[in-house]
């Protein structure tokens, strides 16, 4: 793929929620009414960017060429407030974004308040996904902060009548070394009502000169977390609050025939509501709500649903686009059929991946409150503005009447893009005439959220006797196009993603389909290596010219000591590499197989990762380690079991996620490329583990496993 070595950040199919883009105008007086006097810098970005999020729905004749994307306010008290639509879901964006602002403003982190993901206060943002916060939002905030710093220098130069070149911004103040004059930022903005809108052409500090950014700064709200003071959505309360519960159908798609709300209504303090197929109750505490729900008598009519055992067959037989793959999801070069016919070695394999659940430790939650026809909803979502649209549509009210606020949330991993919990809470609050909090049970989270798509991936390949790849054909059914392209140098390729109907509700997930596609591709590379009599590392290096990917692969192999120890029936080693969302990753894994029990454990995982210039090494390492641990579950044992429209393992006692005892020795090698713009890191390190473990299991057992999860019950001895 030499002609296409550049990594494009492709929007994933399952993240393409069409939301209208809003021109977010905050008139000058509103800034200062809300924020108090001082200085405001806002960044305007071309609205063309907004088209990717459904800009076609914007009213015609819209003359405004730009949208505000972020802004920053410095108050007379020196307080620096930064406004961004991004949400904090555990990826530490609140900290990393504070760092870049502190850097450009030459101000301490403690002087900065990040106001995040509040549709009434922050600029429109498509959502916190796709590892876009670091590559896109961070540089924007950097520019806003740099422009503010220069304005402060200008203010000081004017006030003191000195040459601005003699002024130095330092520690939240501007100083004039010759006269030893010094004025804090708050002092400089006193009495000012300055607004400046900047474009993207602002010079910022290059990575090699980073002082605050590029270093490990502790999580800015860590003290609130360890003391239990931080309020997640599920912790919030409002005066007169009621607790909600929703009646769920016994199977997917079941139709409500009848519901008797009387016995529930008769209970003290309980409101029960039916609206179409939606039945829910609210009560004075969660137990009262659960009891009221039990009292509802409902009859449902099930509709036929696919059998779990036929999943992969079903996916192959139910394309949603029988005419052929979406051209955006297809890549062809040369003639794969001819190249395969001429190849010295040919292989053909099919891989499958199961549905898996995000299992955010905080299940979805929302607190809704109506006041004078306006709705405020606190909810843990990765798409506050998208959820605002969903709410406005559900209740047929203008978006101006809806405010969505996202408290820092108990994780998402791509699982909290949708607004169903917000809508349910708001519907209940409307019926009750009081604020209602709805916190999904774990079983609801496991059943009524959405899953990482299951998929079937077929690969056919060809290679010459010299070990050089000549042909690569890959068809992915349903799991998604992310990471579907091969980074290896193959002259003849045909790569297609096929959308299909899905028996279960599916959506985004950390790393999206890149995990599935890397599992299939890297496993297939191992199979080719075996067929060609080459070492898996050797085969990869022989066919890989991308220097960044070679660098991580070699770094991981070196740290791991690849090839130094021979595999045995009790111990195997595997490796894999890949590129996704601008990040380069290579993973080496060691697997232990206990005999005769067949229990499988990953005992060591080395990850080499490169995502350009590193913003916060410690948090990056934390993200890499966390990704690898999360990857363990999908690689070895996680899968959503379902049949006839019901999930059979909707509890943590039935659906296994990685625990302390599952965690291997984790080693992380970070390659810092200060000459390259930072890419996001919350997702890509997840993709290499599954194929590395598959390779290690093969090395130990001689059996090639082509389905994720690889060993849900260990292996047969």
């Amino acid at each position, binding site marked *: 793929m030499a002609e296409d070595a550049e990594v494009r950040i492709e929007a994933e199919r399952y993240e393409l929620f069409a939301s209208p883009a809003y021109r977010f105008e905050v008139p000058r007086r509103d800034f200062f009414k809300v924020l108090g006097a001082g200085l405001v810098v806002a960044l305007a970005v071309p609205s063309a960017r907004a088209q990717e999020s459904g800009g076609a729905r914007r009213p015609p004749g819209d003359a405004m060429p730009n949208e505000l994307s972020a802004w920053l306010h410095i108050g007379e008290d020196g307080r620096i407030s930064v406004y961004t639509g991004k949400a904090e*879901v*555990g*990826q*530490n964006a609140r900290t990393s974004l504070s760092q870049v602002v502190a850097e450009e403003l030459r101000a301490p982190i403690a002087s900065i308040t990040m106001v995040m993901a509040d549709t009434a206060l922050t600029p429109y943002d498509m959502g916190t996904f796709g590892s876009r916060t670091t590559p896109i939002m961070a540089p924007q905030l950097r520019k806003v902060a740099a422009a503010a710093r220069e304005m402060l220098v200008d203010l000081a130069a004017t006030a003191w009548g000195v040459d601005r070149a003699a002024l130095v911004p330092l520690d939240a103040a501007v100083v004039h070394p010759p006269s030893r004059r010094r004025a804090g930022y708050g002092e400089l903005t006193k009495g000012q009502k300055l607004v400046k809108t900047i474009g993207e052409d602002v010079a910022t500090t290059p990575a090699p000169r980073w002082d605050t950014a590029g270093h*490990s700064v*502790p*999580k800015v709200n*860590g*003290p609130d*977390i*360890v*003391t*239990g*003071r*931080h*309020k*997640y959505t*599920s*912790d919030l*309360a409002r005066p007169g609050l009621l*607790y909600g519960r929703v009646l769920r159908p016994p199977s997917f798609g079941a139709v409500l025939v009848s519901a008797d709300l009387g016995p529930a209504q008769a209970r003290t303090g309980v409101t029960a509501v039916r609206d179409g197929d939606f039945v829910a109750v609210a009560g004075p*505490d*969660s*137990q009262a709500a659960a009891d009221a729900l039990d009292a509802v008598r409902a009859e449902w009519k099930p509709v036929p649903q696919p059998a779990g055992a036929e999943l992969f067959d079903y996916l192959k037989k139910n394309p949603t686009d029988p005419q052929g793959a979406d051209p955006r999801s297809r890549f062809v070069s040369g003639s794969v059929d001819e190249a395969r016919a001429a190849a010295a070695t040919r292989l053909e394999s099919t891989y499958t991946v199961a549905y898996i659940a995000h*299992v*955010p*430790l*905080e*299940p979805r939650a929302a607190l809704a409150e109506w006041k004078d026809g306006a709705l405020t909803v606190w909810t843990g979502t990765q798409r506050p503005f998208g959820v605002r649209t969903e709410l406005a549509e559900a209740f047929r009210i203008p978006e101006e009447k809806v405010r969505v606020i996202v408290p*820092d*949330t*108990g*994780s998402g*991993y791509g699982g909290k893009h949708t607004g169903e919990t917000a809508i349910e809470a708001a519907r209940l609050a409307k019926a009750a005439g009081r604020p209602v909090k709805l*916190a999904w*049970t*774990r079983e609801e989270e496991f059943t009524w959220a959405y899953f990482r798509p299951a998929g079937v991936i077929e690969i056919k390949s060809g290679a010459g006797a010299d070990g050089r790849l000549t042909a690569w054909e890959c068809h992915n059914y349903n799991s998604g196009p992310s990471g579907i392209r091969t980074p290896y140098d193959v002259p003849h390729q045909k790569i297609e993603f096929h959308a299909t109907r899905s028996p279960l509700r599916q959506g985004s997930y950390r790393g999206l389909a890149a995990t599935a596609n890397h599992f299939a591709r890297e496993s297939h590379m191992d199979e080719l290596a075996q067929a060609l009599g080459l070492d898996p590392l050797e085969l990869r290096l022989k066919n890989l010219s991308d220097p960044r990917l070679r660098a991580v692969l070699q770094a991981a192999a070196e740290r791991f000591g690849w090839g130094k120890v021979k595999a045995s029936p009790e111990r195997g080693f595997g490796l894999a590499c890949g590129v996704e969302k601008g990040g380069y990753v290579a993973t080496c894994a060691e697997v232990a197989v206990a005999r005769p029990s067949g229990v499988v454990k990953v005992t060591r995982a080395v990850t080499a990762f490169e995502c350009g210039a590193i913003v916060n090494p*410690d*948090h990056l390492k*934390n*993200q890499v*380690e*966390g*990704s*690898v*641990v*999360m990857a363990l579950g999908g690689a070895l044992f996680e899968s959503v079991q379902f049949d006839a429209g019901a999930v059979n393992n909707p*509890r*943590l*006692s039935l659906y296994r*996620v*990685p*625990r*302390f*005892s599952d*965690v291997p020795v*984790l080693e992380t090698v970070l390659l810092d490329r200060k000459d390259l713009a930072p890419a996001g890191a919350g997702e890509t390190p997840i993709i290499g583990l599954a194929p590395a473990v598959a390779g290690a299991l093969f090395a130990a057992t001689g059996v090639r496993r082509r389905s994720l999860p690889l060993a849900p019950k260990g292996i047969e001895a």
Partner: protein
Amino acid sequence: MATTELVVNGERRRVDADPRRMLLSVLREDLDLTGAKYGCGEGQCGACTVLVDGQAARSCLLKLGALAGKSVTTVEGLEAGGRLHPLQQAFLDAGAMQCGYCTAGMIVAGASLLRKNPDPDEGEIRHALEGNICRCGTYTRIVAAVRAAAAGTRTTSG
């Protein structure tokens, strides 16, 4: 409505609530102590961990009525005299959190462990915390934080 008397974070409390209700819901909904979290409702994730008479317990499985006269400590009760508990400080120092939703349960479970075993090795820590899930996968750092807190506690008390 029955009244249950118990001690919560060192204070005697009279709680007027259905004694069948779970301690977790009473703490969160009646006593405004939201540090303990709901994660599963079946004692599988440890997010709701509190100390009952000094022992780690799953508050999502404990009925209020069974707690009369007992002493309950939540994460909010670990600070003493405005100072963080050594485990709280160690979690901060080790960066042993991402989303933080499991953190309170981890810290309380860790506190229970350190009461019984002031010098646990890594294996003992993993074993004691096996019932606590960190979906963000910060397990390695959590083990390091408990080790560091143990070392710090021994130094300061010794």
